[in-house]
């Protein structure tokens, strides 16, 4: 018996050490499900993605609330964009998600007024919202995204080009 216990103990210790290492170094431990956060590349067309973990629902979190939380999580990630080392069309600095709401299969994302500080041209607007819409419609149960700014629905951004009055779909691109 002794001769079998020791190797098992060694293996268990090794596993424990490995888990501790992976956790403490912020690396490698990819737990469970992930979702894709899309961004538009600098050609103005192609999408790239980074994957982030998708939290499982907590014990007291209903399916409805979990969908809401997942949409909030994905929207914040999409507005943040990928790490700076990745070239991407990005929302104007300071743009933040003020809140989200889910109604049926439409997710409403309320953005701060910083989103209105566009550089001009269709390039930024097109790329920013394309990434946001692709990200949120990648969540099962969501197929459209309504954008509001500071709580208000608007037809376009000031001096803008993109129509934002109606929910946006992947088919708009």
């Amino acid at each position, binding site marked *: 018996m002794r001769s079998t216990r020791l190797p098992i103990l060694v293996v268990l210790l090794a596993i424990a050490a490995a888990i501790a290492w992976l956790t403490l170094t912020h690396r490698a431990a990819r737990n469970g499900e992930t979702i894709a956060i899309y961004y538009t590349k600098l050609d103005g067309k192609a999408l790239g993605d980074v994957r982030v973990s998708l*939290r499982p629902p907590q014990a007291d979190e209903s399916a409805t609330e979990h969908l809401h939380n997942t949409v909030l999580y994905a929207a914040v*990630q999409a507005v*943040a964009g990928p790490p700076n080392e990745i070239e991407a069309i990005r929302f104007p600095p300071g743009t933040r998600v003020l809140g989200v709401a889910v109604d049926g299969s439409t997710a409403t994302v309320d953005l701060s007024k910083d989103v209105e500080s566009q550089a001009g041209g269709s390039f930024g607007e097109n790329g920013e919202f394309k990434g946001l819409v692709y990200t949120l419609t990648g969540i099962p149960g969501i197929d459209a995204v309504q954008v509001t700014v500071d709580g208000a629905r608007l037809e376009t951004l000031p001096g803008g080009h993109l129509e934002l009055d109606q929910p946006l779909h992947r088919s708009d691109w």
Partner: protein
Amino acid sequence: MNSINRFIARTGSAAAAVLVALASAAPASADAPLRATYQGQAILFTHVASTSGAIAIGVNDPGFQTLLHDTGALLTWKPGERYVLLTTAVPVVVTFALGDGRYDVGQIALQASFAPYQRGDEAFLPFNEVLRALDLALRQDGRAWVLQPQLASLDVRQDSGHITLFAHGGAPLRPRIVQQSPSSITYAFDGVGTTLTGLRQINMGGVRTIEIATSGTVRNPTTTVTVALVAGAVVAPPRNLDDRDVTLAFGAAANSNAAANPNAAANPAVAQEQQQQAPSPESSAGAAAVTGVTIAPAADGATVTIAVNGNAAYEWHRLRAPDNRFWIDIQNAQLQGAPIDQSAVGPVLSVRVRQIDPQTVRVALSLDGQKSLTLAPAANGLQIGVGSQDVADAARSGTGSFGGVLASGAQTAAAVTPAPPGESGDYWNSTAAGGWKFGPRGTYVPANPRLIVIDPGHGGSDPGSMRNGVREADITLDVAKRLRDLLVARGWQVKMTRETDVDVYQPNDEAHEELQARVDVANKNGARLFMSIHVNAFINSGPYGTTTYYSKPEDVAFAQYMEKQLAADGTKDDGIIKSHLYVTLHTLMPAVLVETAFLSNPSDFALLTSPAWRQKIAQEMADGIGQYTQAYPVPNQPPQ
């Protein structure tokens, strides 16, 4: 020729760092304010609580908000929400959930020292975990506290005989070379401390070891990185990727570098047929034996077969464009024989096989693009199908298993689809993206088939983009007038949405009123075509080129004819792009919006400010309209 061997020099003291962080959290007694110095500035944290021996910080704390502002971070939370999200300057989103000890950093799930909670209308977060996400550490200096920026990571990447260190800091990194000799070099990073201290063996790419140490005071720390070199190693100057990210690069001496790539000049034809033979009987019990690799051309691309005796699980990863490498780690496996290096001609440029640790064999492929990949068990191991076409959204990682006797549940081929169903291929292809939201407005017949409406973008109270006193509204009007004159000379009727620098609807109107007024000019006059002229811009000077946007099915052909003419306009051709633009969406007739060039790019700027160039693009637009209307005549109307 690229090989991959990425590992991380987050040395073993990370565990100690956490223990130190937890221990250092203790002195703050419950709910006592905490005064800490950050970059020479005192910050008072008043919404603090001691929880499980660690500090909890309230999200409404004025000091905390100052810290977030100063570090370029954003916090997303409001009462009633379960998730508290912190976007760092990197940016990385750190997600906490009230009542849950788990927190997520990008793709990584971690355990916090306590679960965040809500008290009154305020969420309280574990402070040390928040600080770690901000690349800061709370340090004691006598009786005072200091928020010390950290050298947060030093990642090591080995690539074709080169070693590159990627340093990331919680403050701007300005490495100073404090010592250099043929056998070592020491960099000092002033202003950052670290918990990554220790010695790491490298023994590759001209680098023997890396040693990280700290010195100085809590308030003025210095972290030193000493790299011990092989004789003759090449040292590149430090390079800042941005303020907080620096690379330090090293190469082996010229002769050993060549030795590292013995197959660099190998005949591809030979390499493709080459099969590494190696004895396998002595493979250790239970471990799979990797015996060789073959690259063979296939009908569409190439097939790489990894010969393996035994069962094994594997994990694969691919890097992002433009880094077209892909690797598979075969677990519990032994490489029989020498390391393998093969080169070939596309789509697989090279294959390298190495025993990267006692249990893992890594097969690294360098491809000539972001190719589609399929992995499937084969009779003698694992087969990788590499397609000849680039895929827009390749999957980045996955796992699988193979072997003579597969575990139950793993009987099927572990195929790797490059993208989820319905998301593959070219996103720009409207079919792949899900088709059209609106069907073609097939009933539209222009009341005036000789009328073209030209829309010079912006104007009046809206100047559009601006650079060095040049306004988009002026350029669009100038190009529009040139186009009008050319079209009129060819017998077209032309209506402009504006002829001077004015708002089309009214001054200071809402953007959509303005855009609808432009659409109305075309719709109410029964125009044949609508042509909106704009100038692009971006927050940095990188992007340049001409883009033709469209929105409706009936716009496509017009956009294609327009783009074909504009392709040779002297800047980059960015093609046609479908988008949800107001004016192209709401016009009844075929419509395009041309973003002529980028005001924010210096070479495009030079073009935009040249009258000759503006004449040239107006000419190309006129030609595009002419060719489109010849190819698509209005029924019962003579072609123009």
